[in-house]
């Protein structure tokens, strides 16, 4: 292999409207950090982007093996970006295992950077490779750059007097430097980040910086690449931006809801992938008066939150599928006593423990119906990482306005994926007015607000409001235990009507794309990006398609049924076996068809387009 030698003397710089790059290597190779740094840099430069971190499953695999491979993909563009990209233009693979797991996604003639030093006997065996891909011509279809990342990094750091292990830990920054050169990006934001992160260990900061710069100059000097690329800034709507993952966005959203409502935020949670980061984030915001309680289990997590809500806090509980299952009995209690509560389910692959680090949308029916008896509950779903911020606020607003527990669904893809997020001004945030009752004169714990059907929020400690709550059926208004047949029917219908009443706050939907036509795509959650990209592409080919992306899954927007009538076909793509489509067909008797992918990974734009063509061509 002597790519370097064959390279021509002068270097073209090509301007593209978008590029997709993926860093992959062993869990220990720091691929997530590398990806995040590259992402920050292109973001700061002004590109729109979407990322897809793909961790190994919730197990620790031996270094260099296939299950240990970790990846981070980012698509960045001068136009709008909706997905991390179906396939990649440039792939950085730190070892044979990573190469084997990721090569399939590299475009023909795509750029492939590998660490030549990690393709020894044992490395290949660990990757269960029968022959050495660097030599068996299996990579001929790509622009291969086999670089001695390890050796070159050591060379670059030799004066620093670090041990070999520490030096080798920097090789991902050497690769990062190469990519910065390849896409004509400055290194300063990463330099800043390193100085800050290793402020206590300046030597390590220095080492990583040198490695990165060495990678950059390596390209410069050796002219390794015949070409470099330039992706101009995107025309995002003006404002201040930051990168945000879904879990970070949720945390910020709940803090914002707490500030706007004037209620202290309480989070009762038990760690579970991929929801744990919400707890990690919120536990840092003590200066916002946030109380985080790591409970002994999910049941204590939700019931402690119910206790906090009873005490007058903005109470939330966060979990994923298996934890959701454990919370269902207590949700019934919150419904019966009509206390506000937000339950966040960051969906993951199942059933049972399933695929903890993979994404799925299969908890919708559980959210809608997974409780004993008639226990209706409002259900919301976020569509993008940034949307998680707004949905956290909306879920909180509904909960306290209607005195009702609310379920908010996200998933592993939203939780860990990041996108540029325009930071709202405080005055752009919704108001969340809250009033506790304080006046004992004819106070009744179950009296009703005629507009919302909400009962008063009467918190302990308020003189004269002493009253009893409980999970037994009760008489309306007085709240006294009551088992009379007609009262029960009245209460069951009342609890349902209360949830229905929320529809008054939901704007009628206006489909994106064609307001009527041949195909309406109705979807929810993290499929937003792929569907938007797919619909845009197909409409550009002249197809008449509309797209409705539901954030309100219970109740639905008022005009949903009517809107569906305006199209010849209704298609419902979901990362499950067909859950939203089940509800739509039943409620509206419309022959909506499901399009289902249950692979623990998001839809690709091409899959959406393929299905559209299948239906319309």
């Amino acid at each position: 292999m002597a790519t370097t030698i064959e390279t021509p003397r002068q270097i073209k710089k090509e301007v593209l409207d978008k590029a997709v790059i993926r860093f992959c290597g062993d869990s220990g190779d720091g691929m997530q950090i590398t990806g995040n740094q590259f992402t920050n840099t292109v973001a700061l430069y002004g590109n729109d982007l979407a990322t897809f971190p793909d961790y190994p499953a919730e197990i620790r695999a031996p270094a260099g093996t296939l299950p240990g491979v970790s990846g981070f993909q980012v698509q960045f563009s001068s136009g709008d970006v909706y997905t991390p990209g179906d396939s990649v233009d440039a792939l950085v693979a730190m070892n044979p295992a990573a190469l084997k797991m990721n090569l399939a996604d590299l475009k023909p003639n795509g750029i492939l950077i590998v660490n030549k030093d990690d393709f020894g006997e044992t490395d290949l065996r660990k990757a269960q490779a029968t022959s050495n891909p660097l030599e068996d011509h299996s990579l001929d279809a790509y622009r291969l750059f086999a670089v001695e990342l390890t050796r070159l990094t050591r060379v670059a750091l030799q004066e620093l007097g670090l041990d070999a292990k520490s030096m080798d830990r920097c090789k991902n920054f050497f690769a990062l430097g190469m990519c910065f050169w390849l896409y004509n990006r400055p290194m300063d934001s990463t330099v800043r980040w390193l100085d800050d992160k290793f402020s206590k260990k300046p030597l390590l900061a220095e080492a990583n910086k040198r490695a990165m710069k060495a990678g950059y100059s390596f390209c410069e000097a050796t002219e390794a690449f015949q070409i470099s690329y330039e992706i101009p800034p995107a025309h995002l709507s003006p404002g201040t931006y930051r990168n945000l993952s879904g879990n970070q966005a949720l945390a910020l959203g709940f803090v914002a809801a707490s500030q706007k409502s004037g209620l202290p935020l309480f989070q009762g949670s038990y760690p579970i992938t991929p929801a744990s980061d919400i707890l990690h984030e919120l536990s840092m915001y003590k200066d916002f008066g946030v109380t985080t309680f790591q409970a002994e289990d999910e049941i204590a997590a939700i019931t402690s939150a119910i206790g906090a809500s009873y005490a007058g806090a903005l109470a939330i509980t966060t979990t994923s599928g298996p934890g959701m299952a454990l919370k269902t009995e207590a949700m019934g209690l919150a419904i019966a006593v009509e206390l506000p509560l937000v339950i966040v389910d960051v969906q993951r692959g199942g059933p049972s423990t399933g695929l903890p680090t993979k994404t799925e949308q299969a908890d919708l029916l559980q959210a809608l119906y997974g409780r004993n008896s008639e226990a209706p509950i409002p259900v919301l779903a976020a569509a993008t990482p940034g949307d998680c911020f707004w949905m956290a606020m909306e879920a909180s607003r509904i909960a306290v306005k209607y005195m009702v527990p609310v379920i908010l669904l996200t998933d592993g893809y939203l939780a860990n994926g990041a996108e540029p997020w325009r930071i709202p001004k405080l005055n752009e945030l919704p108001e969340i007015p809250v009033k506790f009752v304080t006046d004992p004169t004819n106070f009744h714990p179950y009296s009703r607000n005629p507009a919302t059907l909400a009962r008063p929020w009467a918190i302990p400690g308020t003189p004269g409001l002493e009253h009893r709550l409980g999970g037994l059926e009760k008489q309306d208004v007085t709240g006294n235990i009551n088992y009379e047949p007609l009262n029960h029917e009245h209460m069951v219908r009342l609890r349902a009507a209360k949830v229905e009443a929320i529809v008054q706050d939901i704007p009628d939907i206006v489909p994106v794309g064609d307001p009527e036509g041949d195909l309406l795509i109705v979807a929810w959650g993290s499929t937003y990006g792929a569907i938007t990209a797919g619909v845009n592409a197909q409409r550009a080919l002249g197809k008449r398609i509309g797209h409705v992306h539901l954030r309100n899954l219970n109740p639905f927007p008022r005009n949903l049924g009517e809107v569906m009538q305006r199209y010849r076909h209704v298609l419902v793509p979901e990362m499950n076996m067909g859950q939203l489509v089940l509800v739509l067909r039943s409620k509206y008797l419309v022959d909506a068809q499901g399009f289902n992918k249950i692979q623990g990974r998001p839809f690709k734009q091409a899959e959406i387009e393929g299905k559209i063509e299948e239906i319309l061509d």
Partner: protein
Amino acid sequence: MATTTLPPLTKKDFQTDQEVRWCPGCGDYAILSAVQSVFPELGIPREKFVVISGIGCSSRFPYYMNTFGFHTIHGRAPAVATGLKLIRPDLEVWVATGDGDALSIGGNHTIHMLRRNVGLKVLLFNNRIYGLTKGQYSPTSEIGKKTKSTPYGTADRPFNPVSLAIGSEATYVARTVDVFMQHMKDTLKSAAAHKGAAFIEILQNCNIFNDGAWHDLTEKEVRSEHVVQLEHGKPLIFGKNRDKGIKMDGLELEVVQLGNGVTEKDLLIHDEHHPRASYAFVLAHMEHRPGFPTPIGVLRNWGDVPRYEDVVTTQIKDVIAKKGAGDLAKLLLAGDTWEVKA
């Protein structure tokens, strides 16, 4: 505060209009009456009291207390109360629970609440049976007991609620009996004075499904022989003629006859503030042995552990004192940001 100037509260102030729905003769009535007469004596305004319960006959308790009350779900009262306390440490929160509610389905929440030392007063109504569901055995039922669900007798060794609590790092552990009204009131008052988690096992009779559960300890003829009352600073004496005492020799307790040589000085002098949990553990275990009485009173009263809710809220206060109250705008703008110009 204003309330102090109001007329002092009376027992009546803590009674509700709700008809009390326990079986006639149930031990729960006495417990209700004891609590209703102790609360007014605590000098705490009524609106500060909250009674939280799970499910069971005993868990009906909040309905009959004219305070804030929450009848939650089976076994979860300690967790609900913990959330409440973390937001409102100023409230006086009492938990009413049963041997099934607290030790069977709710066992995990009970032991975690105790280790955390949440500032709750827990009244465990121990009737050694599931009352509300009409007579199955509970984790405190004696082994071999024949019940609706064990016609041939149980195979389970019971918990000793007091040892379980001590093993869970409880800072306050006491035991009293439904029919010993004065003792019950004194115990409740002592518990009320404890800052942290106060665990009180109340031996209670279920005259419908487990009548006589505690007859050995409550029947006039025998009680003085089978019960030893622990009083801080006093020797452990019992017996009809108060002529028996308990000696402690190392880990060994011994029942001794007073007189001919043996005097009170030779007996174990109770120290509820004993620094070692082991001390209370030793006391708790005497009842398992033939010839030994069952101890009632305060077994352990270790004041000097901070309450969970105080540690948590102090942490928040300290951070705010140090960083200043959080600024939402700043928070949103944190991290790497960039401008997009119009």
